[in-house]
């Protein structure tokens, strides 16, 4: 069973500081939903509002359509996985997993049976009697998931659960988490500041900055059509060419930049004379006979592609990833080359309000 979560104009203030600013969202039942944003943008605060550890200063949190105001954390149908996991070190693995069942008054044998079942689910059969301290990082991770799933939550909240693991384990756990989510069908609400994690695992992602939601959408949607300069810059690598709108219609805009006139999709409804930034992904820049003139400063040969860091007119930084199709141009350091992009693969947006 899974339930959706709705945030309706939720704000959270600590004194005069606004940690969550007027957030409205609909998270669908059974969805793998991620909040992605830099440190301090209010991700944990949102999770604590959903789990019931704190109440919003204004606005409503609804789970499965029910208003959660006044419902404590121990009474909500959510379970949380903490950033540091917070396993109980004085209990065995099985006792940890069955803690929520002990609370619900299940008998000892029943608890043990459920714990063993969950250990099978997380592919760690037979470790029920071990002490938590004896487990590896990845095993602890999975035990924390099992402990949360034991209470059969309709919504599972995960606060950067992979940040303590090393890179290889992290990548492995991504697939694992995704598989567990598919198997159980529970709504996963996942917090991360790692865009790779958010993009690979999620059905949808909310990009956050300074307590506000910048954009909500499927990973590819956000990558291809960022709606704000922050979302464009934070999700994936990108080039940013600032300038002034020369001309614009509902589809496309022409921007005067230091690199010359650039054409890009007009997703933000820009009109002539406005300040704007053209965003182009490095892999969308292609070698060409005409286009932006770039002096190569660094290059890295990666096999299937070559990464070029260069400088355009007036020292504007340019990054390109050029696919190695066997006909690479001469890209010696210090040499000049021309790069071009298809206007439909670039977006023009208003600059971020604060740098």
């Amino acid at each position, binding site marked *: 069973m899974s339930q959706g979560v709705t945030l309706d104009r939720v704000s959270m203030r600590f004194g005069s500081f606004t940690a969550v600013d007027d957030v409205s969202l609909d998270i669908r039942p059974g969805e793998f939903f991620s909040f992605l944003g830099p440190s301090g943008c209010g991700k944990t605060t949102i999770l604590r509002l959903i*789990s019931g*550890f704190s109440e919003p200063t204004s606005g409503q949190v609804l789970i499965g359509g029910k208003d959660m105001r006044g419902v*404590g*954390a*121990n*009474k909500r149908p*959510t*379970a*949380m996985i*903490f*950033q*540091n996991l*917070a396993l*109980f070190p*004085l209990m065995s693995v099985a006792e940890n997993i069955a*803690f*929520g069942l*002990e*609370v*619900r008054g299940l008998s000892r044998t029943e608890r043990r049976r459920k714990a063993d079942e969950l250990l099978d689910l997380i592919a760690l059969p037979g470790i029920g009697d071990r002490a938590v301290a004896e487990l590896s990082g990845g095993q602890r991770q999975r035990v924390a998931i099992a*402990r*949360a799933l*034991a*209470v059969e939550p309709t919504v599972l909240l995960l606060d950067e659960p992979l940040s303590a693991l090393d890179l290889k384990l992290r990548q492995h756990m991504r697939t694992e988490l995704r598989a567990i989510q598919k198997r159980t069908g529970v709504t996963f609400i996942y917090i991360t500041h790692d865009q790779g994690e958010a993009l690979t695992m999620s059905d949808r992602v909310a990009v956050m900055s300074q307590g506000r939601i910048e954009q909500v959408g499927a990973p590819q949607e956000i990558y291809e059509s960022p709606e704000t300069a922050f979302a464009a810059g934070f999700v994936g690598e990108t080039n940013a060419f600032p300038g002034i709108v020369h001309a614009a219609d509902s589809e496309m805009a022409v921007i005067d930049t230091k690199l010359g006139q650039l054409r890009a999709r007009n997703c933000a409804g820009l009109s002539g004379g406005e300040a704007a930034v053209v965003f182009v992904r490095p892999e969308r820049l292609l070698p060409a006979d005409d286009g932006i003139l770039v002096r190569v400063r660094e290059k890295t040969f990666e096999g299937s592609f070559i990464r070029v860091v260069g400088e355009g007119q007036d020292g504007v930084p340019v990054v390109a990833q050029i696919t190695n199709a066997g006909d690479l141009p001469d890209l010696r350091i210090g040499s000049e080359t021309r790069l071009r992009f298809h206007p439909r693969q670039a977006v023009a947006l208003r600059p971020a309000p604060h740098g």
Partner: protein
Amino acid sequence: MAELSRRLGGPIAALAVAAVAIWLVLLVALPDLLMIDYSLRPNLPPSEIGGPQDVHSLANYAVLWSNKIHLGIFFRTIWASSLVTVITLVVCYPVAFYLAKVAKPSNAALLVLLLIIPFWINEILRTFAWYIVLAYNGPLNRVLTGLGIMARPIRWYGTAGVMVGMVYAYILFMVFPLTNAMESLDRNQIDAARDLGASRWRIHRRIVIPHAKPGIATGCVMTFMLAAGSYAVPSLLGSPSSRWFTEIIYNWFFEGGNWNLGAAYAFLLLLLCIVFIAVMMRLFRVSLADIAR
């Protein structure tokens, strides 16, 4: 030792070690050894000391077991000290939890200061303050009768007075080990337990208390030992019916003039308290290593 002599140079290190050794021997070991010697000899008039009757025996230690009244007072002391320990624990646990896990650091610091200030005053004075507060015509009785909570004043001196006085005297010895132990508990563990549906009571029973167990044990042992060995509080706030074993020891020394029996009683109190604590620790599955950690 090697570290010390490297840092201070040989002669000074030797001097420092010698000073500590002399201090330990003269002021700690020797008096105790002397008392053990006393406790093993009969109480004789000065002329017969060193005479043929002055032999070592356990006779003094046997006296307690044949004196029903003293034995009764002894067990009452153990029982009452246990009660003091439990009450102190019950009073201090919420305070310690608040200090360690609820209060903001600045508030906690202020509260600790407020707890400590009364202890800058010496124990006798503090006990005298209670003596005045609890007097038959004292402020407590007057307030309680004045408010109509009680029809007539109560005689507080006795068991009630001793309990109040001791709990108050030993609060810090309980609060600090508890707070210390609780401070190392990860706040997320409490949140995690709550998130899994645990009530406040269960969070304490399953998470906080097991974590704080070494601190609880330390606080209880200290409070118990201090209570059992206390003299000022029972003699000021007690009554004939709430006599403390230390008062009997005092009487042997200074009224009965029988240092030998007094010493034997004192060692019996010490030994039996240790045995009692060992049994309790067994019962609650606390090991010495827990306390030392």
